[in-house]
């Protein structure tokens, strides 16, 4: 597969949210606004790229029977590093996403890419795969966030265009399921063409 293909497949053909349907917990929980979705996507991308790189490096020497624990330790390390860095340098972002950062450890996207791609491919390809899937995840979360923010709060990236509130259900959990479902239909219809 071409190098460019490695990146673009994460956007459409293997879009983690709308096609692979992985990592639903952060998707539903953090997309209350466009900014939150974007930040969560970037945080996951950071972990994904680094863990893909390291796992593709160590995969040849890790015995098969312990590969899952080894990968989990690697991923958990990067997540904790990210958590400490966010707490120290962007405390406001950490406050909104706080609870969901440690959950990146068990995000199926990260472990899924380690298992399905990084352990069988070269370091460079794994890094590109991490970037591609990461961008796909970030864009998906941002789009869901934008739709929910427009409908639920009447604003885009915090910029309000109506006075008062929007349809509040969209900021809460039911709205997350509704928006995700309709976007998934739309996405797959357009992607099939």
């Amino acid at each position, binding site marked *: 597969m071409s190098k460019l293909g490695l990146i673009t497949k994460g956007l459409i053909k293997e879009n983690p949210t709308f096609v692979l349907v992985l990592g639903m917990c952060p998707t539903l929980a953090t997309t*209350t606004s466009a900014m939150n979705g974007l930040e969560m996507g970037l945080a996951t991308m950071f972990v994904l790229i680094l863990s893909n790189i390291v796992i593709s490096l*160590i*995969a*040849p*020497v*890790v*015995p*098969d*029977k*312990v*590969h899952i*624990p*080894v990968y989990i*330790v*690697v991923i*958990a*390390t990067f997540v*904790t*590093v990210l958590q*400490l*860095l966010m*707490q*120290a*340098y962007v*405390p406001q972002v950490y406050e909104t996403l706080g609870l969901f950062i440690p959950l990146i450890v068990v995000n199926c996207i990260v472990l899924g890419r380690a298992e399905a791609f990084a352990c069988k491919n070269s370091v460079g390809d794994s890094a590109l795969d991490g970037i591609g899937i990461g961008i796909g995840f970030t864009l998906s979360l941002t789009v869901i966030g934008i739709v929910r923010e427009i409908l*639920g709060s009447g604003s885009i990236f915090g910029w309000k265009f109506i006075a008062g*509130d929007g349809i*509040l259900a969209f*900021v*809460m959990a039911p709205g997350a399921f509704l928006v995700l479902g309709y976007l998934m239909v739309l996405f797959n219809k357009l992607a099939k063409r």
Partner: protein
Amino acid sequence: MAAVSNLKNMVLSLTLVCLVCSAILGGVFAMTSAPIKAAEAAKTNASIARVLPDFESEPAKESVTVDGTEYVYYRVPGTGYAIISTVGGFGGPLTLMVGIDEKGIICNTVVLSHSETPGLGAKCQTDASFIDQFKGWDPAAKKLAVTKDGGEVDAITASTITSRAYSAAIANAYSVYLKLGGNE
């Protein structure tokens, strides 16, 4: 391609990975612990600055037990107290910081954390007409309870439970203030 899964290899690889990872974590922790402390202190000081009038001296963190509950508060000499008070709200704990000056008058209140419903109870963070009614409130003269309960607090529309919790949190903070010596 992978190494043989015998006991020696498995123990060795897991131990090595864990060692390296803990070393990295230790390093990052040492690097970030000072900025994290600074960020937390900045946040606390920003809250104190919002609930108390201009203060010069450094706030001192202390704690006191009133009616079996431990309250953390910041004493600002010459100005008053910033008391942290937690009560059960509609969706979970509601934590406020309440600024009370040395005469026992409430200066301002700020929500530190909450889990109220967006658009309804969560308005207790943004609804100026609700928050501002507590500025200059004298709990000795005006009862801290929503009008439905015979008090004088105007509740947020459709969020009586949150308003009730907010009032109770301030009332608790006031009892802490009284325990601390009040206006002697």
